């Protein structure tokens, strides 16, 4: 499986969200719309319920939740399905939608923020395998400090891929894979397997188009395995 086919596969999931609200769209609505989710809105009367959203898969309602509750869920530290015992289908789909979501038009800066989340999680768990591609090894230059901490302060096995346009300094725990075949050149990819805890697995695949990135991120170990396989 290639990185491109991974992106296409995630794009095909048929999910819709209907946001019931008054006035301007809440942040989460804009966010979802900007991240490849089909979003509609309906208006609520003044004095009625607080804004809420209805989540559907293949036109079947899987859950309904207040916008406030969603925004709380997304406030760090994010409590993921693996952290809960009584997780319902609605939450599962919501998280999958939020974290296994196709995005487009993402800037490098936004991509870096998501990457940092994945790196932070790998750092907290402190064990397992983290694979990253920043397109070119020279892009990795600004990440040296972060990866020095990841490599030396944890037991992580870290693999850095990229077009070999620069020779990075050796860091304990970090293996470089200079790729001349341009296989990873267009892609910004991170895949963390969660180490001892598969529920901590997370990953990101982004393809550069112009100055912007299109792709998805995932929070389930099955998808992360697919991403990992695409590196080989």
């Amino acid at each position, binding site marked *: 499986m290639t990185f491109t086919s991974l992106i296409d596969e995630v794009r095909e999931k048929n999910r819709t969200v*209907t946001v*019931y609200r008054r006035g301007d769209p809440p942040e989460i609505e804009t966010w979802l719309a900007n991240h490849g989710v089909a979003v509609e809105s*309906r*208006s*609520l*009367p*003044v*004095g*009625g*319920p*607080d*804004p*809420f*959203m*209805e989540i559907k898969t293949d036109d*079947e*309602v*899987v*859950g*309904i*939740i*207040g916008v*406030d*509750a969603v925004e*709380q869920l997304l406030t760090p530290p994010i409590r993921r399905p693996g952290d809960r015992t009584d997780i*319902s*289908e*609605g*939450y599962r789909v*919501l998280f999958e939608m939020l974290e296994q979501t196709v995005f487009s038009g993402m800037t490098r800066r936004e991509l870096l923020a998501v990457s940092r989340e994945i790196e932070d999680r790998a750092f907290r768990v402190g064990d397992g395998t983290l694979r990253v591609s920043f397109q070119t090894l020279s892009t990795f230059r600004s990440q040296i400090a972060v990866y020095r901490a990841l490599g030396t302060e944890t037991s992580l096995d870290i693999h850095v891929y990229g077009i070999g346009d620069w020779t990075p300094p050796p860091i304990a725990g970090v293996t470089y894979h200079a790729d001349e075949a341009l296989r990873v050149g267009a892609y910004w990819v991170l895949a963390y397997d969660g180490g001892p805890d598969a529920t901590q697995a997370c990953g990101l695949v982004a393809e550069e188009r112009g100055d912007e990135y299109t792709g998805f991120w995932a929070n389930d170990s099955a998808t992360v395995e697919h991403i990992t396989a695409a590196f080989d």
Partner: protein
Amino acid sequence: MGGPKDESDYRTQETERPLSSRLAADRFYNALSESHRRRLLYYLGGTEESTVEELASVLSGWEATMTGTMHTAEDRSAIHIQLLHNHLPRLADADLIDYDVDAGTVQLAPLHPRVTEIIRQSVEAEQLAGSE
């Protein structure tokens, strides 16, 4: 469910039932004696026409915002069943809504401003109590 055809014709001509006859009817208080039904009327007051499906989502969402949790597909379908077999027939019976069973559409019946006010105040009072 909205009673005989001639009665609903009469209602549209008169725009609303006389307030006194409504306030003297037990059916009116029965219809308003449940939170979902009051919310439903309130919601209809702010929209042209709704559907049973939409009302199930709105009542479910309303509940979800009060509890701060996810309402599941099962929660929503429990409300949907209540709408079909309890809430909508009762409200139609009390002439508070126009309910087209076949089309699954629901509209607020023409209401006296004081009735609208009672609905508004009761719903807002409950909202306030719920947010405390």
